[in-house]
């Protein structure tokens, strides 16, 4: 089917066009405010040659994974509990509303004070940046469940545990997965910032270090491009989870 293949090629063709325009603009300019794509590619090759590319990517992904997974494991059950019990929500809500608007980056000094410069600090910052959004997602997801589902389940004689497992859990799953996808994106943004200050490896460190140690802007942009590509891949992976058939329903079906 020719139309299909054209639809697939179009975004790539457009990116290629932009790259050419970028290269052209940089080569015509007398100043050196931005490295061109060829220079950037050279930067990536440099990183590969020194064995840093894989090392830094692994370091960043390692921190994101731990912070994200820890936050999910703690925030989701807690959020489901709070959402399910009105009294718990009344108790937790003021605290949540205070913590939520604090940027995870504001925690950097405290993270370093508590955990020193190293992986633990970065993981802690990622954890914070994921914990509150996931907690709120889980609470909202529970509260959005139409009461008719819970009533129907009780009518069929389900125990409290049965209602949680057979109604609450499947009812919140699509929203939770969307929440996880968005939060993973946030975590990927925060890890770069955290690595600029709290550690000395990873893609965020690469960017700061490249500038500090000799104004290697080719490496700075190379780092940015790699961050973008990995972020895209992470999002793509989470999106494919969302597309699973049993999750594709929504309340607003009719």
């Amino acid at each position, binding site marked *: 089917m020719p139309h299909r293949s054209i639809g697939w090629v179009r975004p790539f063709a457009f990116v290629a066009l932009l790259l050419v325009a970028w290269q052209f603009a940089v080569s015509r300019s007398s100043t050196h405010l931005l490295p061109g794509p060829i220079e950037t590619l050279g930067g990536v090759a440099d990183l590969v040659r020194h064995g840093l590319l894989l090392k830094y990517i692994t370091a960043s992904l390692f921190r994101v994974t731990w912070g994200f997974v820890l936050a999910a494991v703690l925030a989701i059950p807690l959020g489901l509990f709070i959402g399910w019990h009105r009294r718990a929500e009344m108790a937790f809500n003021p605290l949540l509303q205070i913590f939520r608007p604090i940027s995870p980056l504001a925690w950097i000094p405290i993270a370093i004070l508590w955990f020193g410069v190293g992986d633990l600090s970065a993981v802690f910052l990622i954890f914070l940046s994921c914990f509150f959004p996931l907690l709120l997602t889980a609470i909202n997801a529970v509260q959005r469940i139409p009461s008719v589902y819970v*009533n129907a389940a009780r009518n069929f004689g389900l125990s409290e545990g049965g209602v949680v497992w057979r109604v609450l859990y499947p009812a919140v799953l699509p929203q939770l997965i969307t929440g996880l996808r968005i939060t993973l994106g946030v975590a990927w943004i925060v890890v770069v910032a955290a690595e600029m200050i709290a550690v000395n490896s990873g893609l965020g460190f690469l960017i700061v270090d490249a500038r500090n140690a000799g104004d290697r802007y080719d490496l700075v942009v190379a780092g940015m491009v790699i961050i973008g590509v990995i972020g895209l891949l992470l999002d793509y992976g989470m999106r494919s989870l969302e597309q699973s058939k049993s999750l594709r329903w929504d309340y607003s079906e009719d």
Partner: protein
Amino acid sequence: MTFTRDGKSTPVLHDVNLDVAKGEFLCIVGPSGCGKSTLLSAFGGFLAPTSGEIRIDGEAVLGPDPRRIFVFQERGLFPWLTVEGNIEFGLFKLPKAERAARVAHYIKMVGLDGFEKAYPAELSGGMKQRLEVARALAVKPDMLMLDEPFGALDSITRLIMRGELLRIWREERNTVIFVTHDIDEAVQLADRVAVMSGRPANIQKIVNIDIAHPRDISSPRYLQLRNGILEQLGLAHQI
């Protein structure tokens, strides 16, 4: 029965006395907002009356019970389960083989063969309603409570669904309590029609529908009964 909201309490039902016989098809009609659904929710055990009590087979109703299944306006289906999964939902206490047999039986009864693996979102309004009835019947309840079940359907589907419900009821012989604001619907379906007054509501009159099924909806007796109920509700014969 009284509701309290923002410190103000609104009496909804007052002095309701209603006996329902086993295997009977009872319709409850009344002006909108009169408390028909509240009464049905109390029968179902979802609301507790502020005074008085509801007894079924001599036993007080204290909460929802699988012997009395409430059918919501097609909204009670679980959208994450298939047709099969929805019908199977209430059968968790049965052995696997019997579960499968029941599911197959009720899918056939409501004419959803071929849609076993479909999700509710892929079904039409009438099919969803049939599915919800099938899910309710599958647990073999003594009593079915339907709260304006066909209210969201178009008029053609609604007529078909009435016929289907009567056919199923003749096969299963559950006690049916059916709330509607449609007087024709009530006279077409019910053995008896309970007419409710405005708020705070009570049962104004109980009308016996002494016409055999299938009912001729242009017969003089049908029109007479229907007009009698319209008069009870204080509605003129002409618009």
